[in-house]
């Protein structure tokens, strides 16, 4: 690929990214948010005692623990982060 072709490819990639940012990024972000919220809700129901929510640790929590471990730190951070209405705007 010549330098000229590389420049054109880079320019096209930039245009593509900007258009994606305008048209689709919000949709993709919302889908991720929905999935994340569902997962975090599930972890809250099963592992809520890790945050002090009084949930009796059932048998299934222990079975699920290995799968949940990778997400615990981000889940805790998201649950405990201070939020207000302006978060819902963006």
């Amino acid at each position, binding site marked *: 690929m010549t330098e000229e072709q590389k420049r054109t490819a880079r320019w096209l*990639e*930039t245009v593509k*990214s*900007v*258009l*994606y*940012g*305008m*048209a*689709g*990024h*919000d*949709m993709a*972000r*919302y*889908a*991720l*948010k*929905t999935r*994340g*919220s569902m997962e*975090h809700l599930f972890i809250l129901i099963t592992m809520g005692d890790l945050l002090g929510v009084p949930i009796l640790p059932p048998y299934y929590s222990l079975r699920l623990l290995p799968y949940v471990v990778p997400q615990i730190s*981000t*889940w805790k*951070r*998201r649950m405990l982060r*201070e*939020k*207000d*209405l*302006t*978060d*819902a*705007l*963006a």
Partner: protein
Amino acid sequence: MNAVITLIIGFLGIAVGYGVYARSIDKNIMQPDDKKATPAKMYMDGVDFTPANRNVLFGYQFKSIAALGPIVGPIVAVRWGWLPALLWIIVGTFFIGWVQDYSSIMLGVREDGQSFGALSYRLVSPRARTILLTFIYFYLLLIMGAFGKIVGYDLMSNPAVPIGVLLVILIGLLAGQMTYKWKMDIILTSLVTVVLAFVGIWIGTLSGVQSLLTAINGSPDTTVFGSVTWAQFFWSLVVLVICYFGAVLPIWRWAQPINYVAFWIVFLGILGGTIGLLIWHPAFPADFPAFTNWNGDLCAATDCSGVEKTVGAMGPLWPLLFVTIACGAISGWHSLVSSSGTARQLEKESDALYVGGGAMFLEMFLAVLSLLTAVVGVGVTRGFAGYVSLVAAGKNAGVFAVGLSEMMSHIGIPVSFGLPYGSVFLTLMALTIMYLVVRFMRVASAEFLGDSIPLFKNTTFGTLVALALSALFIWTGFWARIWILFGGANQLMASLALLLVTLWLKSNGKKYLWTLIPFAFMFVTTIYALLLTAYKVLSTLSGLPVDKFVGNILAGVIAIYLVAAALILGWDAFKAFRRPGAEAKVEA
């Protein structure tokens, strides 16, 4: 002057503003460091905090900040003449607009991605957060009033528009079905739905359809109550029903796919208009004044004897011009998007200028283009008198549609299609914001009042209350006053954002005059504009029909509340500012 020269002046403003002033602030004061982990990297959770490519974020930021504001504001501001409007768009963006957007992102990035509510609590005072949130609620209500009146009264009452809009909404629902349920390829989905949307707009222009809608609109003399005509009432109600669905249905089912299809219609319109303008490159019409008068009084600048309705004066250029054009020059909304959305997705600190500053300068370009739709789009083909008669008929959005269609006619799109297309374009731009606003108002009322009145936690009830309040604003009062209040609330939020950044800069021992001076200017200007509006609406109550009477009282009360809240915030900020150096933060 030639329209292309105006665009070149705009580009020069961008080149100097972005390339020199903004880069110098970025390099010497904010000093971005790419070795520092941004909140998006440090707290990456794949949900709120996720690093994104700078070009993607640029597109996201631009789309989030550009709505009806940069389009309608400049058209209304032409009442003072095109020169003051053009100067404010360029100078406002140069010294204030980008400063606010960029610094809000940097503030968010450096403060762990905290939202403005939390930051105002910490940097100003505990009550500052509550005031900010009530500000936002009123601001959203004013968006509903201002946009609702434009769509219901101005755009949808045109028989060539509603069918196009309703078909685009249906096609948007089809796009959602194709994407999320049938899992079809997004390029194919986009092609099919966008082509169908254009066919839908064309169907709306057919004479049979227009005759039917003219019959539905009835006589313009038929009023439902006060001075509200049947067509205005009916189409506003349709708009509220659309907003209801947008607020209660899952976002993937309604809001997102419709917004997606609408985006392409808007994007292609802007692109077509710009190319058409460049091909056309008309000179400014000789009869279109660069400056009318200090009061924005069109009838003092031209002969209004041929105009059916009277056109009132806008009021003094300072301060009203500076709140009439909000989004094209500076807007508080941008700071909310920048701090809560963009700052949490920034991959590197050095991307902040490109994303925040760059998107704002591009919005400035959109505002200049919108100004040109009035000055050359309408001015060249219909003369200054054409602009005056459209404004007198309350068709501010119509000015844009006429201007855009004239521009697009130079790339081969007939005016008979371009005119309804421009109107559908604006209607969609407003609607896509409006139903998200209602959605947010519903969440806000559940949050504020849900504990004391549990009924507000009910989705339908919360939405209906938000819609009822919106209807009150749409069906009462004068549009021009609501637009000024909307701009005022917007600019007050911008002042607050600049104030927060100033306090933060001071507490971190950085130079802060570049944000303090814009803050002081916007704060004083907006408070004066709101007081002036309150005086105007409350001193002219006698002899008004019931709808205008109620609307004026509402507008006056809101203006006074906004001023009082801003003064309390200003006082709290003054106390915070006087705290010594790095200890400016409030004890929590």
